[in-house]
C-alpha cells in the first residue's frame, strides 16, 4: 500500500469511527430528551402511561383557573373537547396564558393531577400551536369547539 492510500485508509477509518460514535451519542441523547405531546383524553386512556415526562396540550378550560390568595400555586384544567385533566403549576404563568386559550405544559402525572414544570403559551394571541391543533382536530369536529382564528379573540 503506498503512503497516500494508507493515509486515506486511516482517514476513512477515523471518519467512520467518529460517525459511529456521533450517531450512537445522538440516538441516546434524543431517546432521553424527547417529550411526547398528549391530549387529556389520551392521558386518561392511558396512552402516556409509561412515560415519566411528557407534554400536555389543549385549551385551558373555562372557569377552571384558581389560585389560593397570596400563593404561587396555580390550579387549572386542560381540555381537548373530550376530556379534561387538572393541572397544578407553581410559578409565574406566561403573559398570554388565559382561559379558553391553547397551552402546552411539560411535566408529569402525580396521581390524577398533572404537575407542570413549564407552561408555554404563544407569542401571538391568535396563534394555535400546529401540533395541538392537529391533535385536537378530531375533537373539534365532533364537538364543534371553535378553533381560535385570526381576529376572533377580543
Amino acid at each position, binding site marked *: 500500500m503506498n503512503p497516500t492510500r494508507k493515509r486515506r485508509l486511516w482517514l476513512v477509518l477515523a471518519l467512520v469511527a*467518529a460517525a459511529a460514535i456521533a450517531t450512537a451519542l*445522538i440516538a441516546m441523547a434524543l431517546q432521553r430528551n424527547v*417529550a*411526547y405531546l398528549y391530549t387529556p383524553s389520551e392521558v386518561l386512556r392511558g396512552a402516556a402511561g409509561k412515560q415519566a415526562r411528557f*407534554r400536555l396540550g389543549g385549551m385551558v378550560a373555562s372557569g377552571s383557573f384558581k389560585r389560593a*390568595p397570596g400563593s404561587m400555586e396555580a390550579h387549572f384544567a386542560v381540555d381537548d373537547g373530550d376530556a379534561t385533566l387538572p393541572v397544578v403549576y407553581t410559578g409565574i404563568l406566561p403573559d398570554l396564558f388565559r382561559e379558553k386559550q391553547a397551552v402546552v405544559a411539560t411535566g408529569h402525572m402525580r396521581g390524577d393531577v398533572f404537575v407542570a414544570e413549564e407552561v408555554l403559551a404563544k407569542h401571538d394571541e391568535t396563534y394555535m400551536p400546529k*401540533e395541538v391543533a392537529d391533535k385536537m382536530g378530531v375533537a373539534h369536529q365532533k364537538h364543534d369547539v371553535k378553533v381560535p382564528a385570526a381576529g376572533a379573540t377580543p
Partner: protein
Amino acid sequence: MAVAQLLPELAQVALLLALLVAILQGVLPLLGAHRGIAPLMAVARPASYLQLALVAIAFAILTRGFVVHDFSMRYVADNSNTLLPLAFRYMAVWGAHEGSLLLWVLMLTIWSAAVARFSRSLPMPVVARVLGVIGLVSACFLAFMIFTSNPFERLLPMPAEGRDLNPLLQDRGMMIHPPMLYVGYIGFVVPFAFAIAALLDGRLDVRWLRWTRPWTNVAWAFLTIGIMLGSWWAYYELGWGGWWFWDPVENASFMPWLAGAALIHSQAVTEKRGSFNSWTLLLAIAAFSLSLLGAFLVRSGVLTSVHSFAADPTRGLFILVFLGLVIGGSLLLYVLRAPRLEDGKPFAATSRETLLLLNNLLLATACAMVLLGTLYPLLADALGLGKVSVGPPYFGLMFLLLMAPLVALVPFGALTKWQRDTPRTPTAMLLPWAGLSLLLAVVAYFMAPQGALKTAAGVLGAGWVALGTLRFVWSRLRANGRFTPEMLGMVFAHLGLAVFVMGALLVEAQNMVREVAMKPGQVEDVGAYRFEFRGVQEAPGPNYMADRGTVQVLRNGSPLALLFPEKRTYAAGGQVMTDAGIHAGVLADVLVTIGEPLGDDAWAVRMHVKPFVRWIWAGALLMALGGFVAAGDRRFRRRPEASPA
C-alpha cells in the same frame, strides 16, 4: 394627493419590474458566460443596480405607508395604529411576514449591487455567472412575495384605525435584529453563487476564491450580530432570564452560522494551500441552503416554536419547493462537476491543515446535530411516531461534547505551521499557558459559591483559548511585530470565543432564580443580593397601561439599584406583556419581573441573578468584530495580475 394615493400601485409595478429584471439578470448573463457572448454578460451589472433601485422604491413606499398611517394598505392596517410611536412605525415595516420578505429581498439586491460594484478585479464570465445565480435567487424570492405574500394589497373600505404591531416587537433591540440577521443570511448567497459559478465553469481559481473570502466573513459577522441581538432580546423582553432556548427558530439561524464558521476556515485553507477544494464549495452550498431552510422553518410554521407567529402553510409549500430546487439542483451540479476539480496538496498529520480539518469536522457535526434535533419532530411525525419535541438537554449535552475538543484545539491552530510541523513546537509553546489556565480553574473551583465544576470548566476553557491566542500575539510581536488584518481578525474572533465560553458556562453554573409571592415591604434574599418589594402602581405609557412594580436591590447590604419591572396591557388588542427591570453589570446582571396580582396586595415576583451573562454577547460582538477586521485585509482586494481590467 392623487399621486400619493396611487403610491402602493406604483410599488406594485416596481416589484413586478424588479421580478422581470431579476429574471433577465438570471438568464442572460449565464447564457452569455456559457456561450462566450460579451454583450449578454454585460447585462449583469446594470440589471443588478436597476433591481436595487426598483426594490428600494417599493420599500420606501411601504415605509411611507407606516409613517403617514395609510390604513388602506392591508399590511399597514394589520401591523400599526395611530398610537404607535414613530420609531416603531419604521420597524413595523418588517414586523410581519410580507414586510420582512420585502426587507429580505432588499438585502439581497443590496448584496447583488455590491457584488456588481466591487467585482472589477474578476474576469467578466465569473462576474456574469455569480450575478446570474444571485439574479435567479432574487427572482424566486420576488415571485414568492408577489404571488403569495404581497405587502401592497389594498384594504377597502379603509379602516379608521389599524390593529397593532405585536407588542413583543415594540422594542429598540428588535428594530435592528431582523436587518442584521437578514444581511447575514442573505450574505451567504455570495459564496454560494461563487461556488455554483465555479462548478459551472468546472474549475476553481484561487484568485477568485480569494475575492469571495471577505464576503463570507462579512456575512458571517452580520449573522453573528443578528443572532446576538436576538438572544439579548429574548433575555430582556421575554423576561424568562434565559439567553438561548434551542428553539427551532433560534436553531434555524444557528445552523448557517455554524456552517459559515466552518466555511471561513476551509476557505482559508483552499485559498492559501489549495486543499479542501470540493469541501469548500460544498460548505458554501450548505451555508446558503441552511439559510433558506431557516427561512422555511420560521415562515412555514411546521415546527412548534415559542417564536412562531401566525403562519400560512401555502407559503411553506412554496419555500419547500424552492428549497428542493436550490439544494437539489446545486448538489446535483456538485456531484457532476466536483470530481473534475483538482486534488488538494498533500499535508502531514501534524499541520495546520489537519487542525482546520478537525475544526471543520467538529463544526459540521455540530451543525448536523442541531439539524437533526430540529427536524426530528417533523421526522417523527411523518413516520407516525407521535408528536414529539426535543428538549434543550439534548442540544446542551451534544453541543458541549462537540465544542470541548474544538475549544481544546483552537490555540494550536494559529501556532502550527502549514503542511508539516513537529507536534512538539506548538505544545512546548502552549504548555505553560495550559498550566496557568488549569491553575485558574482550580482557584475558580474553590471560589465558586455553586456549580463549582461548571465554573471551573468555563474558566479553564476561556483561560486556555484566551492565553493560547495571546501566546500567538506574543510570538508575532517578537518575530516582527507585524499583524495583517487577517491575523488580527482571527485574534479578535478567538478572544471572542474565550469571552463567550466564560459567559455561557458561568451563567449556567451560577445562575440563581427565585419566584415568590411578595407583599409591599417584604424582603427576599438571593445569594448576596437582597430584594425589597415596594408595591405596584399604575403607570400609563404611549400605547399601553402598565402595572409598574418598584423593587430596591441591595448587594451585601449597600443599595445597588432601584428596578421597575412592568406588566403592560396594550390598548389595541389588549395583549399583556412583561417588561423586566434589569440592572446590568460586568460581573452579574440582576433581573426582576412581576407576574400577576395574587390577592391581599401580594404579587408574583421573579428574581434572577445572572453572573457573567453580558460576556455571552460581548464575546459574540468580538467574534463579529473579528469577521469585519479580517474582511478588511487588503490582500483580498488586490487585483490579480493576469485579469483583464
